[in-house]
């Protein structure tokens, strides 16, 4: 896009719509919007608007689009990849005045906020309520929720709590025509594509975020911080791996080298030694009080074993705050050491950190520059800051050369181009080195769907010589192209094939593409459709990459959950998912995003899947994501494929985040006299300081039971059982605690209650957790009214309710339509073959259905991949 000036007419229209004080045109004022936190490149916009409402944003976008102006959203401008720099001029939409917290529902653990709300302000608001918005970028004092979402920001606490996209439930977006839509409504696992996950980290190139539903996390009861000093960065990095290997999952493992210490030492009166080599490792653990000191002592012992020469626990909150403020201020404090810095952001598998650090040191010496290292070691997220003087062109060149050298080795080590700052303007050129042409095309396809005119944040993410439009056109041509002459051994519709390798499967899919035959994937051994070719992943099994200390694994898609657990168990690791049938393939589980009760404590597939290997509809193999825990390199296509039900391609391999096995586990079972007392207990649990990993509500005509699982340090587990017992007894519950095999058996029976089986009707209703009790009550009433038997099992604090229904088929159908009318997220999961389902078996059409369809059409133009799935089948594409 070329730079266009704002016409007098446009200015007048904007003033009329937004108010005169919301439209900025003086050149000197525009100058202050020419750069972000990076100072890499500067270019002033033609006009800036400062709207207060989503509707004003929509109007501004409409007018700018009509005038052919580029549109760049800007939060606080703390980005360090040039994301908010209006390189092509145009209109900057600043969200600074959209800073209202609209709704806080602590019982549902969510809040609705405007995009300009400052991260720290949201947290200050939530703290007295006992909650937090967990992503804590070091810039949180200033950066906005909109900016955090757009860059999928991370922070020190992401090791335990995950990055921003793990904490965003839905976003409201203004599209390129000025139309507003929501990607979801805050209910978990909606049917359709995970647009929320896709939009997070899209750096303002797919629309302007005008509101967000974010997840709230309970504040821990207790926190322990320890600062350990090591003689070298490499020693500290080794200690990090050892801490992880020992099985505790700290909230953060942060490293500062001697230069970083120098930058903040005196300003925050840390009193640390500044001698060359000295490296500080900050370790934080949190949770309930019980067992925390013990955990800390273990960590301290590990530090000593790895050569820590001084270990300083920060016991009181004031000292802890000082340590954290200092850590978070390093980048900003560089002004004390040099006039500018070039901050390199890259993530490698954690075990590669020592190699990377040695490399950084080599580059530093080679180019003769000062480098300051401060990084999220637990995540493998390096942040070398190269200090330089921008007025000296030679120094600039050398700083850039060091950055290039770091990124090159990182890519070679399985790392990514950006972990949390984004690609922006800074790293466009690295994209073709990281992605294959087909992968780049897939990214461009998404860009084309959401940003067809290229108005949103032009010149970002994609390198200038590979424009999204050209890449998307190349891809479209590729997908269209059909050459019937190359078809040999064409499988016929209804057949079942089980290729030996993904490459062989790609051949089959390619052949189907040419012949126009639909493809359905399975992990099983029988054909799933009479219209399509069923491609089975059953022969692809086992480990592809597993480095236990990284807490990640990559396995072939045909590997079953049981096999995965067997691989992980000897290393005392696990995937926290319980299923009635653990012999399902991981490819299938990911595609269907099948969840389990422990999602309360550990999240679900969208939080675990790091990378996928996929065969595209025309048989080309691509790799999405990377086997590292943080990644903002291009769009998060992994999220798009999780839960996509095989409609976008066939998954051939899955890379996952895995977890250390907790040292102890127990489940409290409370049988309650009635549902009201059961829900009262659940309310109390929700607002207590306890951190159960599952809270399941089970009701049928026999009994009403609440099961609370707790995992972690033995003392913490006992504390949970003890406190929850007292809480449950207040509501006249009879209480038992189960452990070991009893516990395993109990959960096995519980998950069997909602395992889809052919002979039974199984429904799922999703609501905001606060409405769970009332919804269950309504479901029971409807069942009673329709004279069907409904066994309800709910992830009580997640708002997901499974209903196993038995009775007369017609009555069940009526019951289903009652629920579908009352609850938009009512989904028929399974039914006997002769059951005629209610028309809306997928629930209400989602608000963003047009965007979802457009994605499907762009990726699979002939609707060949699992055409029966979702409402795509009913409504024809």
């Amino acid at each position, binding site marked *: 896009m070329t730079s266009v000036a704002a016409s007098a007419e446009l200015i007048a229209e904007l003033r009329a719509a937004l108010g005169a004080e919301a439209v900025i045109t003086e050149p000197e004022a525009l100058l202050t919007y020419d750069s972000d936190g990076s100072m890499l490149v500067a270019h002033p916009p033609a006009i800036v608007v400062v709207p207060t409402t989503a509707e004003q944003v929509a109007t501004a976008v409409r007018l700018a689009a009509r005038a052919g102006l580029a549109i760049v959203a800007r939060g606080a401008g703390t980005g360090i990849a040039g994301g908010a720099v209006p390189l092509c001029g145009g209109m900057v939409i600043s969200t600074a005045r959209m800073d209202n917290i609209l709704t806080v529902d602590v019982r549902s653990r969510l809040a609705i906020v405007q995009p300009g709300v400052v991260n720290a302000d949201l947290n200050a608001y939530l703290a007295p309520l006992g909650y937090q918005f967990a992503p804590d970028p070091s810039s949180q004092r200033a950066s906005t929720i909109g900016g955090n979402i757009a860059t999928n920001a991370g922070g020190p606490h992401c090791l335990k709590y995950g990055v921003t996209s793990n904490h965003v439930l839905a976003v409201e977006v203004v599209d390129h025509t000025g139309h507003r839509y929501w990607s979801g409504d805050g209910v978990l696992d909606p049917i359709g594509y995970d647009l929320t996950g896709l939009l997070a980290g899209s750096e303002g190139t797919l629309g302007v975020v005008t509101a967000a539903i974010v997840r709230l996390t309970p504040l821990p009861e207790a926190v322990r911080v320890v600062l350990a000093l090591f003689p070298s960065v490499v020693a500290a990095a080794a200690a990090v791996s050892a801490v992880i290997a020992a099985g505790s999952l700290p909230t953060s493992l942060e490293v500062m080298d001697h230069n970083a210490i120098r930058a*903040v030492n005196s300003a925050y009166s840390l009193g640390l030694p500044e001698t060359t080599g000295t490296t500080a490792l900050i370790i934080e653990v949190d949770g309930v009080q019980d067992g925390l000191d013990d955990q800390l002592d273990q960590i301290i012992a590990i530090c000593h074993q790895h050569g820590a020469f001084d270990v300083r626990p920060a016991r009181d909150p004031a000292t802890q705050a000082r340590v954290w403020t200092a850590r978070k201020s390093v980048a*900003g404090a560089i002004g004390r050491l040099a006039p500018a810095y070039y901050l390199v952001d890259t993530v490698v598998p954690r075990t590669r950190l020592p190699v990377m650090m040695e490399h950084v040191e080599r580059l530093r010496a080679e180019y003769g520059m000062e480098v300051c290292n401060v990084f999220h070691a637990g995540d493998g997220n390096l942040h070398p800051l190269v200090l330089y003087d921008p*007025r000296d062109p030679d120094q600039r060149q050398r700083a850039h050369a060091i950055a290039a050298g770091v990124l090159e080795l990182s890519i070679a080590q399985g790392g990514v181009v950006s972990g949390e700052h984004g690609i922006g303007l800074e790293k466009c050129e690295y994209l073709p080195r990281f992605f294959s042409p087909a992968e780049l095309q897939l990214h461009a396809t998404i860009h084309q769907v959401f940003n067809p005119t290229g108005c949103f944040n032009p010149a970002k993410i994609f390198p200038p010589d590979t424009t999204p439009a050209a890449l998307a056109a190349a891809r479209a041509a590729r997908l269209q192209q059909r050459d019937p002459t190359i078809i040999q051994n064409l499988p016929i519709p209804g057949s079942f094939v089980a290729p030996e390798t993904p490459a062989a499967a790609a051949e089959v899919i390619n052949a189907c593409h040419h012949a126009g035959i639909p493809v359905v994937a399975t992990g099983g051994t029988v054909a799933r459709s009479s219209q399509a070719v069923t491609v089975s992943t059953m022969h692809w099994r086992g480990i592809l990459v597993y480095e236990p200390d990284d807490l990640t694994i990559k396995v072939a898609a045909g590997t079953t959950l049981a096999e995965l657990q067997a691989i992980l168990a000897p290393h005392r690791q696990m995937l926290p998912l319980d299923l009635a049938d653990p012999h399902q393939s991981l490819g299938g589980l990911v595609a269907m995003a099948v969840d389990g009760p422990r999602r309360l404590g550990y999240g679900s597939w969208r939080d675990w899947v790091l990378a996928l290997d996929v065969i595209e509809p025309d048989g080309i193999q691509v790799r999405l994501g990377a086997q590292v825990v943080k990644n903002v390199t291009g769009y998060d296509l992994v999220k798009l494929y999780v839960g996509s039900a095989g409609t976008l391609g066939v998954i051939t391999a899955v890379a996952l985040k895995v977890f250390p096995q907790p040292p102890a586990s127990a489940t409290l079972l409370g049988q309650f006299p009635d549902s009201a007392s059961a829900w009262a207990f659940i309310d109390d649990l929700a607002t207590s300081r306890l951190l159960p990993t599952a809270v399941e509500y089970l009701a049928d005509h026999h009994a009403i039971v609440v099961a609370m699982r707790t995992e972690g340090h033995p003392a913490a587990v006992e504390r949970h059982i003890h406190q929850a017992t007292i809480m449950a007894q207040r509501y006249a519950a009879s209480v038992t605690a189960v452990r070991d095999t009893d516990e395993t058996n109990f959960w096995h029976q519980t998950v069997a209650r909602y395992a889809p089986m052919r002979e039974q009707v199984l429904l799922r209703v999703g609501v905001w957790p606060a409405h769970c009790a009332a919804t269950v009550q309504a479901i029971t009433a409807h069942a009673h009214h329709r004279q069907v038997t409904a066994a309800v099992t709910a992830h009580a604090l997640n708002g997901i309710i499974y209903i196993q229904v038995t009775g007369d088929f017609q009555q069940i159908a009526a019951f289903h339509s009652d629920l579908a009318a009352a609850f938009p997220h009512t989904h028929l999961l399974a039914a006997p073959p002769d059951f005629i389902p209610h028309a809306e078996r997928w629930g209400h059409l989602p608000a963003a259905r047009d965007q979802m369809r457009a994605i499907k059409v762009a990726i699979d133009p002939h609707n060949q991949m699992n055409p029966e799935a979702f409402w795509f089948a009913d409504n024809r594409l």
Partner: protein
Amino acid sequence: MTVTQASSSSTQPTIPLIGFSIKDKPSSDIINTCVHCGLCLSSCPTYRETGLEMASPRGRIYLMKAVDEGRISLASEVFQEQMSLCLNCRACEAVCPSGVQYGAILEASRAQIEQARAGKAGPPAIPGTPEPKLPPRPLWQRALRGAVFGVLFKRMEAFRLFSTMMRLYQRSGIQWLARKSGLLKLLDLADTEAMLPPISDHYSVPRGQIFPAEGERRYSVALLTGCIMSTAFAHVHEATIRVLRKNGCEVILPPDQGCCGALHTHGGDLDGGRELARRNIAAFEGLGVDAIIVNAAGCGSTLKEYGHLLHDDPEWRERAERFSAKVKDVHEFLAGIDFNRSELGRLNITVTYQEPCHLVHAQRISAQPRVLLTAIPGLTLKEMPESALCCGSAGIYNITQPDMAMSLGARKIDNALTTGAEIIATANPGCALQLAGELRRRGKNVQVRYIIELLDESYRVFAATA
């Protein structure tokens, strides 16, 4: 990718712009310490209110940098407006990880504008540019500034006379008349007028008085009486003296001292500020006291910066530094000695604390006032949201930027009222006036008190009951 330097991107102007002059130029070194990280944004009251980058610390520094590098003109309205809209509250300085000394470059920038308006700028800093000259201020502004900076605050007799007139104005029916008649509305002074506090009946006139310590003498200290504090808030000085004496201090009120010069330095009249600084240094020199005590936050931060103000004056630099090193805010002083907790009497009150910018940001004194407050038996301290965000009173700010001053005052009171406290404690005359004005406007029955007054009251309650 090609890398362009942020500062050299906009096209170089063909006609030379008006840049800074050499005299009192904002230091390029300080400007360049800013790494543009933006971490200061959310702490800045004017950014919070406007949401505009140019009204943020980073934006203002960027504008200064642009003038410094000759990319925009000193005459730029945006530049001048932003230098004026800044409260100089220095919240940005307190949070800046790079330690950018914002106050120094702001005051210098303001001085640049005033010099150029007065035609006294001297040679330009960028060779080849014209001598910085700006159109003079309108006559009424010049008259006002002349009266305020040149007479009122320079000569304490004049100041006391003015105060007496204001007191007469308040006590006599004229105030009532003025309010009723709408005269003030007409003159657009209504908001300023509402701010006038009830003025003390008498003044603290420093004549070299020495108040002996109660009990054993542990310290000898001198008190800065200042301008407004010695007239409108003389009762606060009296409370301060009593509290200090209770803590084993002998308190001296050296003669010949005067206004600290804060208004001058903040308002761009650096030379005026220097004159006052020299007078105060001379007045306090050679007393051999342990500390120079200040009970007003704004004065305290100014006195502590005399060293910087007179940095280029070889004759005064060292004397100024020695002086500044002795200056202690009264809360800082008390919390730093083992202050007398045993004779504090019970005050059953709920208090919220409004942090004066020049205490929390400029002097980084935040814990000490709270230590004193919470030492008072029966007192409940309820923290307000945004306690460290400027209340909108900053010297003559209420007159130069009435809208921003008003909305920040309203925001502060909104925050304070959420606590349900019956008293807002503070430690600065500007804040006290601003808070009281806003409360009066709303008809709220909430008191504004100095921390030191509450401490004094607590000691007196003890004395009365013992």
